[in-house]
């Protein structure tokens, strides 16, 4: 099981909004492929999958906020 954590984006930016999951729970993803899109004031960021596998669980839904360091999803 690999946890997908939100890495630091910019100093002072502690929160982002999850705007889009590129994969649904149960779908496969390859390491390095875009997994989730995140929005801040300055720009939109795509977070690639840290490992290959099935998206087991999504912990932050689209439209919700996430904090730096928070686990966004789990890949198995």
């Amino acid at each position, binding site marked *: 099981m690999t946890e997908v954590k939100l890495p*630091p*984006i910019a100093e*002072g930016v502690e*929160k982002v909004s999850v705007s889009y999951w590129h994969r649904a729970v149960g779908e496969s993803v390859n390491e390095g492929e875009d997994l989730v899109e995140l929005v801040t*004031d300055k720009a939109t*960021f*795509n977070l*690639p999958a840290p490992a290959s596998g099935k998206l087991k669980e999504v912990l932050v839904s689209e439209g919700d906020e996430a904090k730096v360091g928070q686990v966004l999803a789990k890949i198995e």
Partner: protein
Amino acid sequence: MTTGISTQTPPWLKKRLVANDVLGLTLKTLSEGRVHTVCGSSLCPNLNECFSNGQATFLLLGNICTRGCAFCSVEKRRIPRPVNADEPSEVLAAVKKMNIRYAVLTSVTRDDFEDGGAGRFADTIRLIRNYSEEIKIEALVPDFRGDRKAVETVLDAGPDVFAHNIETVERLYPAVRPGANYRRSLSLLRSAKDMDPGQLTKSSIMTGLGEDDDDLGLAMEDLRSAGCDILTIGQYLKPGKDNIDVVRYVTPREFESYKKKALELGFRYVASGPFVRSSYKAEKAYFECHKTQSHKSQVKFLTCDLVSCDL
């Protein structure tokens, strides 16, 4: 309360996030010492990318500025704190730990200092030089109130690139850089070139602040007249609610046309794109200029391989 979140940005303002060991090391190194980075102070959207590549731009003379530029998020105060005497050695320690091969040094503006902080640039450059001749150093200086002696102080320390950002076009100075002067900034670049014609010089312009193509064209021509070799052009992004608003988002296609125009005017290297910042991939500009120096025939090819293409 603001969440710092908006959905107003255009689709091309999109980047990939990286989470790797280098990012962790960079954050750890920078949090251990008392060194500041402009990456953090300016809330730069490239921070994650640069830090995960082990790159950072050091901010000398503290993190409080005596000027109040409308675009900048650095804290302003008329009399900032005294400077940290150990700053040059702390910057060197970070350079060593992060194994930086191309160090960019910049500073807040310190109008409260007789030399504008030029001595601090010189000391830090020399300290890094004494540690390693291999490390390339870029000094991105404030305007030193136009003081040629300050320019000389920095140049005497031998930076590989002498940079000063005009930031915006002449017409927008009163609104964007009220404490600065466009002509003075150009003179600063000119004086560096006059003192040492072999010195690589560099400047940067933010777009999206209300300038038009004519304004921008004039700024480019003025920079070329001042002998400026390297130009970076990027999208202004509002760092905080008290900063000046973004007037518009310049499209990637327009950034391409700015680049073409700048190359036609004779800049030796141009980086132009939405996420381009003065120090973003700064080493690339330096090394490409050196390649073009030894292979003049390849100038066109090399200068087309630009930062913006990666974005």
